[in-house]
């Protein structure tokens, strides 16, 4: 009996194995994009599949950069733009032009056109979140202008744009102060009391440059800041970073310039009183003095002067940023409303994302700088 059962199972397995490997796909027959861009459809763009004219309905352009697997291929990457009503629609059209099976699991970065980002991106991101194969760590960026321009940049140093952008974003918090996000963080940061920020990419000739950060209200981009304000954004948001920070100070009538290498952290204290909600954001900056324009004896006292200078400078910048944020954008892009929720989640939940909440909140900034001297100069 036992042996017959074994035999039956083994036979069954063999039958199944012979019947077919449903999910087996040979690697060389896959077409896997390493970078993709979503844009609003532009009537002029060239789509070889002759899409039907759909009047009034928003169409979408999907640009992908797929590594060319054929040996000795003239171009290392195939870049193609197709359009459709939804992402799935585009993928269906892809079947008409691409001989290989389209697999999204290995995509490294998704670039959103600015126009599209301003309309809200969740309808298009859903396909990525839902997929079981797409990694949540896929980077995300907004392009100044159209995303396809970024994808189509002929990069010299890397053989495809996806690897380049991934390398650009990897470990960026050890190089400079710019917010970076991936698709799962983008999703998580849309929960109540939080808003995502996304880096902005721009094509400059044959290069792709990070030119700032896009501020999102949930899934809609509503503002953009340059790299200098992005620095304040990173400090205020409490994103961990480590980079060089220049300073300038008037000492005895001469202008001292210099640089410190610092990393940052943030603390938020929330309290509620009769006047309203009050947030105290404490930014702590720690680091070392790297560069000083005058070979001035940098003793403890002078170091403290430099600390004071930086504190003052950054406080002023941050206050300006918060002012802009409260009055112009009316958007909490520095991730502090969630601290209000920790006190009374149920009551605040309906209002937390109202523009009024952040506009009327009392936000204070405190900056603390701790520097250490390095080098042989004394």
């Amino acid at each position, binding site marked *: 009996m*036992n042996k017959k*059962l074994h035999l039956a*199972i083994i036979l*069954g*397995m063999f039958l*199944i194995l012979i019947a077919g490997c*449903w*999910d087996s796909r040979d690697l060389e027959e896959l077409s896997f994009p390493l970078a993709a861009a979503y844009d609003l459809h532009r009537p002029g763009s060239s789509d070889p599949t002759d899409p039907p004219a759909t009047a009034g309905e928003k169409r979408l352009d999907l640009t992908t950069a797929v590594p060319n697997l054929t040996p000795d291929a003239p171009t290392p990457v195939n870049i193609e733009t197709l359009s459709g009503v939804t992402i799935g629609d585009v993928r269906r059209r892809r079947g008409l032009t691409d001989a290989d099976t389209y697999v999204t699991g290995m995509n490294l970065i998704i670039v959103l056109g600015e126009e599209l980002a301003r309309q809200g991106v969740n309808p298009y991101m859903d396909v990525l979140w839902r997929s*079981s194969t*797409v*990694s*949540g*760590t896929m980077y995300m960026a907004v392009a100044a202008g159209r995303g396809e321009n970024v994808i189509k940049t002929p990069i010299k140093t890397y053989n495809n744009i996806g690897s380049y952008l991934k390398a650009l974003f990897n470990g960026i918090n050890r190089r400079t102060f710019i917010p970076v996000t*991936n698709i*799962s*963080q983008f*999703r*998580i940061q849309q*929960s*109540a009391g939080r808003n995502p920020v996304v880096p902005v990419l721009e094509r400059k000739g044959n290069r792709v440059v990070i030119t700032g950060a896009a501020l999102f209200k949930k899934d809609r981009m509503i503002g953009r800041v340059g790299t200098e304000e992005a620095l304040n954004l990173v400090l205020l948001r409490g994103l961990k970073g480590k980079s060089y920070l220049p300073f300038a100070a008037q000492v005895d009538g001469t202008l001292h310039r210099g640089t410190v290498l610092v990393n940052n952290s943030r603390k938020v204290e929330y309290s509620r009183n009769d006047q309203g909600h009050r947030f105290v954001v404490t930014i702590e900056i720690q680091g070392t003095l790297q560069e000083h324009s005058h070979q001035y004896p940098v003793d403890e006292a002078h170091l403290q002067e430099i600390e004071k200078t930086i504190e003052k400078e950054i406080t002023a910048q941050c206050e300006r940023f918060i002012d802009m944020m409260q009055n112009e954008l009316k958007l909490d892009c520095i991730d502090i409303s*969630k*601290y209000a*929720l*920790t*006190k*009374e*989640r*149920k009551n605040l939940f309906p209002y937390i994302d109202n523009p009024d909440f952040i506009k009327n909140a009392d936000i204070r900034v405190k900056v603390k700088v701790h520097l250490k001297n390095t080098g042989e100069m004394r």
Partner: protein
Amino acid sequence: MNANDTITSKQLVFIIVGAQIAVGVFSLPHLVAIEARQDAWLAVLLGAALPFAVLLIIERLGRRMPEAGFVGMNHLLFGRWLGSVIVFLFAAYVVLFQGIVVRLFSELTSIFLLPCTPLPITIFLVLVGVVYVINKGARVVARVNEILFWIIFALLLLLLLPLVNADYTNLLPAGEAGLACITRGALVSSFSYAGVEILLVFYFLVGRKEEVIKAGILGLSFTTVVYLVVTLVCILVWGHELLQIINWPALSMLKTVKLAVLERPEFFLLAVWVGVGGVPP
């Protein structure tokens, strides 16, 4: 069952853990968060009370007739006829319950790993593994559960990885959901603790009966800690709003991190989970 098919009380710990922890752990935070929101972890903790009570009852029952065996016990308690009916009902319940587990597990596999393979084939494969293990008898089930326990343990460490993205504000304020919501959540979570009832059968296979209660408490506590940790990590990473939307938050959670060597922890986890999800008593 063979007469020398006895197991040690240590193995009982692993069997209880193996019986309780299956695919349910992936969706548990989601289901509980729907009721108890950010206090889901409290609900999971509270939910453990029910299986502990069941454990104590079974132990009391078993101590009265330590050598009766499951069938014998029912005959003693309810008489020959009614007892047989109850044994049959229990068997039907176990089959049904494990059937659901196998089905859920197959669907999860189908979605994450084998999207094109027909579901019956996946179910067949899972059943092949299950039948093979069970066919070898209680002792081998115990031994396999023992190995799998350590595999579960290693995988749980994997589930701690997403903590790099944790945000403690997601947990606060604690207890705000209210006792009613938390109790409802606890009720939902207590389904995940189902499996402790197999002690009814395994009690009589344990060599040293006086150690059963200790082993049971140890096994249950381990399960509780596992569920608690997984739920906590899920809330910390996702926040309760997303947790209410995502079907398998514990699994999807692994997508949010990237390891240097392992590109996709979630595939790895699910693949290794085959044993854990499949093997049952």
